[in-house]
Every structure is written in structure tokens, then in C-alpha cells.
């Protein structure tokens, strides 16, 4: 049993999300495993984060609510897909980003992109929340997904190491 990941999976599926595509990340394992095991969800890996955004966009266009999961470094691969697909076409894909590069990062190359995520989302006009406390996960996720679907706009959820424990050296 993993509290935050089970809560996210329940909030997503309760709000109708049925397709999840991702580029794997160690911190995301409980989410990936949970979605893979869920009978109402189609979940599979993509080879690159922008490809995952394209697949999720197609599912959304086809009437199948969708989400993409990635590590913060992989977020660097997606701005054009956000800027020229999800945002202008108003596609309510939910983007989950596990945050490296902060709070004990051991790899210098993870740090700069972590500083880009929020300014990039802000510049694109994509609402985002950072999940830090387990007791807030249900509220923030449910409200974010609901707003995305009702307003036909993408939304981003950033998973802080405060919530997930992050990835430590070793």
C-alpha cells in the first residue's frame, strides 16, 4: 500500500482517466505499477515524452481522458508538444512530473531543468500544483483534473520529494 500513489490513481480513475502513457522513472514506480494493474486503464510506455503527449492528445481527441507521466528531465522534451498541440487545441491532458534536481539531488545534470519546469508551465499558461503533503493529494489532484476536463485545458501535477521521498544516491 502506497498512500500518495493509490490516491492519485483513484482520483484519476474516478474522474474518468482511462489512458496513461509514460517514460519511466524510479519515483513513479508505484503509480506505473498501479495503472498497469488497473483493469479500467490502458497504460504503456512511450519512447519519448513528447510522443507520450501526442498519444495522450489523440486519446483525448477520441473521447478517452488521458494522462502522461514523466521525470522532470523528460519535461525538457515536451514544450513544443504542449505549445503547439495541448494548449492551442485545448486538450485536457493531465501531466504528472516527478521532480528531480531538488532536495538532495546528487546529479548536477538534473538540477537546471528542474528550475525550468514551473516558469515554462507558467509561460504556456498551463496550471500546475506541486504535491508535497499526503493529506492534500486527493484535494489537489481531484480539483486539478476536474478543472482540466471542465475547462478543456491541460494541467500539471509536480510530485515533490517531500511527498515521494525522491531518489537518493546509492
Amino acid at each position: 500500500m502506497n498512500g500518495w500513489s493509490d490516491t492519485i490513481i483513484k482520483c484519476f480513475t474516478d474522474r474518468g482517466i482511462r489512458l496513461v502513457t509514460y517514460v519511466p522513472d524510479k519515483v513513479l514506480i508505484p503509480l506505473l505499477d498501479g495503472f498497469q494493474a488497473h483493469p479500467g486503464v490502458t497504460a504503456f510506455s512511450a519512447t519519448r515524452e513528447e510522443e507520450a503527449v501526442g498519444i495522450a492528445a489523440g486519446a483525448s481527441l477520441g473521447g478517452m481522458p488521458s494522462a502522461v507521466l514523466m521525470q522532470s528531465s523528460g519535461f525538457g522534451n515536451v514544450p513544443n508538444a504542449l505549445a503547439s498541440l495541448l494548449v492551442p487545441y485545448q486538450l485536457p491532458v493531465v501531466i504528472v512530473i516527478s521532480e528531480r534536481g531538488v532536495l538532495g539531488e546528487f546529479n548536477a545534470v538534473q538540477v537546471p531543468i528542474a528550475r525550468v519546469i514551473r516558469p515554462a508551465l507558467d509561460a504556456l499558461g498551463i496550471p500546475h500544483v506541486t504535491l508535497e503533503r499526503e493529506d492534500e493529494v486527493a484535494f489537489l489532484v481531484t480539483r486539478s483534473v476536474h478543472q482540466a476536463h471542465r475547462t478543456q485545458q491541460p494541467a500539471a501535477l509536480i510530485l515533490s520529494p517531500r511527498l515521494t521521498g525522491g531518489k537518493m544516491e546509492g
Partner: protein
Amino acid sequence: MDATGTDLRAKVGGTVMKRLDLTRRLVALLTHGEIVVAGIGNANFDLFAAGPRPENFYMLGSMSLAVPIALGVALAQPTRKVFAIEGDGSLLMNLGALATVAMVAPQNLTAIVWDNGTYQITGGQTAATAEATDLVAVARGAGIVQSAWARDEAEFERLVRDGLAGRGPRFIGARVNQEPGAGRPERDPVLVKDRFMRGIGAKPAHPGPV
């Protein structure tokens, strides 16, 4: 050997066809509300010129994502056949998408690549397909077993019919010329989305004039 032709072209063989003509031949075979997702540039210019259909999705940006978008639509709409049309330059940008299609193996998806060996819309710069890369071999290597070059118009139509009648995923390569795209879909992303979603039943039918 022409400007874009080399040993690879000789190996692939077949006829250099007209993209708009092939697009018209494809559309003429779509009589059951089949979905077409067309990539940025000439692929969707010619799709629009072949006659607007509510089941067409026109990509105005996001170069390289026609196949991924079509994969998502195919999973969401399993009872409809879905075609992705992509240019060779766009497909080269995201070859991994072919591996994902092979892994997920949607039975209702056919991907078509128009291969003219160039980045035509940006001025005709040489693409890897002109001299080195056989995209049908790439697709087959990625795991899309049913991948073939259409060596003339009749074979193209036969491969499209195979996609309509049989199980996918499938991949069709066609060598095409460099005529400019013939039409221009309206560059209004929300309108494109709305027409498409209503056209395939993903949103309720439009209530009519308001």
C-alpha cells in the same frame, strides 16, 4: 539517378507518385467514417484538398506526432479504422513512435508515409530518406510486421484496402513527388478539434446554428 535518387531509391524501386492523387485515392476508399490524422504541412494540405471530412484531424504544429496522435485515437475509438499520414521528415524525427505502435499493436491503425526524400516545406533540404534510410524497413524492424512499399497507385490502393479489411497495425510507404500541397485547412485549432470530435462521436453532434 535524379536529384533525390541514389542506390537506396533504386533498391526501393517503384514509381514516384503524386501525393495529392494518392491522398484522393485513400479518401475515396474511406466510406465507413474512418479517421485520418494528417501531419504538419503538405500531408494535411493535400488531405484537406481531397475534400473536407469531419473525421479528419489536421495537425497545425507538433511536427512528428501524427503517428502518436493516431495511436491514441485508435485506442479511444477501437471500432473505427484509423489512418495516420506523415511526411518522411516528420517521421524521421520520431522513429520511436513506430516501436510504440508495434508494442501496443492496435488492430485498427495504419500509418502511411509520404516519402519524397526532402524537407520539402522548408525549401527542399535533403532528408536521410533520400540516400540512406528505408522507412518501410525501419517500420518492419520496429516490429510492424505488415509494412510495405506501395510501388504504384494500384498497389497503394490494395494496401489501403488491406488496412480497411484486416488487422493492424500496418505501415505503408509511398514515394511521392514534390508538388506543393494543394489546399489549406483553416488554421483554427479549436475549430479543428471540435469538428473532429463531433465528427467521430467523441462529443455530441453539433446542435446546429446558434
